[in-house]
């Protein structure tokens, strides 16, 4: 309690300074933060900021067609690059439209800075035109948020926002700026560093705990690694690979962790959880040591908590102490950043005298091979009706497994996760925690802006794509050559599947009637539309789409309307109680 630094007074200013308007300060701060792209949509309260953006070139602005899309695009930009994504929206409806995007990023721990305009300070609280309590509305779905009432606080608040977004457990931070603050002038100092007495994330793992964990792992007979989004967010894939290979242990990922360990490697047993593979779920249920890294024991992963991994001692590494022992009691908790902790674990590994008993490991791998024989992802492609799984498999093959894949929410999302094998991190971009339909297309835009030369695929459904379809216009304006693959089953398929399994086939409101002609729709926006009606069409359509390198192509695959995602663990069942094909 000795440090005098509070959130609003901080830091040694640089010596030379310039007088700028608040709006110019915003733009300069973004530049000084190394921000190249801002995704946004203008309105009255942010007009000074737009004016300032227009007068410079360092920070480029991408104009979306809906504020939700701005935040999703910034989110995907961040997931692909590892940098903080930035979105800019106006007050009132601009801010409320952004909320779904912010909540999506919050649930998946994505670092964002969202700048929102606000009515002038003197009008706050007066029900002024386009006023909402943005800070109040976003408080529960941001890591932190600020209302900046004095232009003198603007630069340091923005610095703090970037610092908070990117460190510890990452997340979105919102900075609400009243219009008059952007018009006022002030000397500009952008602080180099931030230190807050109330915020000190733990980075290094406790050495005693790390040693204890490694001893537990090395003496296991049936160990498995269960890793999540934290490995990707923490850029710890390389360290993970090293450890998992040295130990020769099986590894499974959550939906958010895909790509951290190569899917093509035999030690990878697939995703776990509700739609995880038979072998992954069985291995978790039978393991004696479970090593959870940057994963938060979500209910989609654990199934019935009381029956989850009943024989396991659990090691859990997470940067956020509140993720540890939240749902499942763990035996060796380690708080720290995964890149750091995995490095420590690799070091301890080198010092251990003995690794896992080879006979036990051989038996464990033999058991896993038995489970694998169940071939739980099997499907049958005939000559009449396109199976959605077949489309994803072909997309995987024809893109060489090297596309950036975004998805929406539903069955297609699960098939994308199951059938597109990710060998690298930051190649799979989806909304796991909030499950936001409408994420896929704007996310693909953000990914394409981040990597203009990459093949960006948006695997979507006929329901989800209509939740942000207006962004086809943004794709045209910025010539974003992304490829949409719509697994068009004429249903809100995931809803239909639940109704088939748990509501006795009563398909209330899950049939998507009056679908537009997606090919013509794509053409209306100036893009190319292709349709596949039969299995024989699938490969030529994908090849044609990929050949059109500089064009946005919408592929409409008419797939089996009644296909289900398997395996499935019904909500509340034990992980081993899977519905299988």
């Amino acid at each position, binding site marked *: 309690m000795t440090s005098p630094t*509070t959130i609003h007074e901080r830091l040694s200013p640089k010596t030379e300074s310039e007088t700028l308007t608040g709006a110019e300060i915003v733009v300069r701060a973004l530049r000084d933060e190394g921000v190249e792209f801002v995704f946004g949509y203008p309105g009255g309260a942010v007009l000074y900021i737009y004016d300032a953006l227009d007068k410079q070139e360092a920070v480029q602005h991408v104009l979306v067609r809906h504020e939700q899309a701005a935040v999703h695009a910034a989110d995907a930009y961040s997931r692909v690059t590892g940098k903080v994504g930035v979105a800019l929206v106006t007050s009132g409806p601009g801010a409320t439209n952004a909320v779904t995007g912010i909540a999506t990023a919050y649930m998946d721990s994505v670092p964002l800075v969202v700048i929102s305009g606000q009515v002038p300070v003197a009008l706050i609280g007066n029900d002024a035109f386009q006023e909402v309590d943005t800070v109040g509305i976003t*408080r529960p779905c941001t890591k932190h948020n600020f*209302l900046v009432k004095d232009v003198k606080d603007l630069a340091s608040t923005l610095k703090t926002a970037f610092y908070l977004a990117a460190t510890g457990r990452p997340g979105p931070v919102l900075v609400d700026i009243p219009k008059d603050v952007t018009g006022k002038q002030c000397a500009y100092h952008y602080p180099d560093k931030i230190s807050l007495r*109330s915020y000190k994330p733990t980075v290094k793992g406790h050495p005693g705990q790390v040693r204890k964990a490694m001893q537990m792992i090395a003496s296991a007979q049936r160990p498995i690694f269960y890793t999540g989004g934290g490995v990707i967010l923490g850029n710890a894939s390389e360290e993970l690979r090293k450890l998992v290979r040295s130990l020769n242990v099986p590894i499974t990922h959550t939906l958010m962790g895909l790509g951290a360990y190569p899917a093509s490697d035999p030690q990878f047993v697939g995703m776990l959880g509700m739609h995880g593979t038979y072998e992954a779920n069985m291995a978790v249920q039978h393991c004696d040591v479970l090593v959870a890294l940057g994963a938060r024991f979500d209910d989609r992963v654990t199934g019935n908590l009381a029956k989850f991994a009943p024989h396991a001692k659990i090691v859990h590494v997470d940067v956020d102490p509140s993720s540890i022992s939240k749902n499942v009691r763990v035996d060796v908790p380690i708080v720290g950043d995964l890149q750091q902790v995995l490095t420590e674990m690799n070091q301890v590994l080198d010092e251990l005298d003995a690794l896992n008993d080879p006979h036990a490991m051989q038996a464990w791998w033999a058991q896993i091979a038995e489970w694998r024989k169940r071939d739980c992802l099997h499907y049958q492609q005939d000559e009449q009706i396109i199976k959605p799984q077949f489309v994803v498999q072909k997309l995987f093959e024809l893109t060489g497994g090297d596309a950036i894949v975004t998805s929406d929410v539903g069955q297609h999302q699960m098939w994308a996760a199951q059938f597109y094998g990710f060998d690298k991190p930051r190649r799979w971009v989806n909304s796991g925690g909030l499950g936001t339909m409408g994420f896929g297309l704007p996310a693909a835009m953000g990914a394409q802006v981040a990597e203009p030369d990459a093949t960006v695929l948006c695997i979507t459904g006929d329901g989800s794509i209509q939740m942000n379809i207006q962004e086809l216009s943004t794709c045209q304006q910025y010539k974003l050559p992304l490829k949409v693959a719509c697994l068009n089953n004429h249903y809100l398929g995931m809803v239909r599947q639940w109704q088939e399994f748990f509501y006795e086939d009563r398909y209330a409101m899950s049939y998507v009637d009056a679908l537009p002609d997606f090919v013509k729709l794509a053409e209306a926006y100036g893009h190319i539309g292709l349709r596949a009606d039969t299995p024989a069409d699938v490969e030529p359509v994908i090849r044609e789409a990929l050949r059109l390198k500089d064009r946005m192509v919408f592929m409409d695959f008419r797939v089996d309307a009644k296909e289900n995602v398997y395996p499935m663990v019904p909500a509340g069942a034990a992980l081993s109680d899977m519905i299988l094909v």
Partner: protein
Amino acid sequence: MRHIISILLENEAGALSRVAGLFSARGYNIEAMTVAPTHDASISRMTVATRGSEEIMEQVLKQLNKLVEVIRVHDLSEGPHIERELMLIKVHAVGPDREEVKRLSDIFRGRIIDVTDRSYTIELTGPGDKLDAFIHALDPGMVIEVVRSGASAISRGAKAI
């Protein structure tokens, strides 16, 4: 079990609603909550009286610590501590009740701080159960109005939390 949690947080607009919002969003129970600046004007101290299992309390403490403006969190129930609450209570006091109420107030070490020909207002400090006991000792029909501050608490011994 009942827990008394002390929270030191930045004395800033919004910090209080973050804490209150956390409790309601996560479904944690709040029995009472008090907050005021400390001797350091940049820091507020909040006392929250809550109930929950050991697992829930662990999450409560971790979630509080996670709030960016929270500097320190301590569960005072883990060790010896002193808890005090202030109550102002207005009671009917006419005829023979006047003497009776005054006597009762003396027994509880209360102070009569306002008087009319029909009522007394009494100030009483102590642990919550003492204040409860005082209310129960009165005939329910006599109580006109009660205001309680909620618990403030501090650990025993020479050290700060």
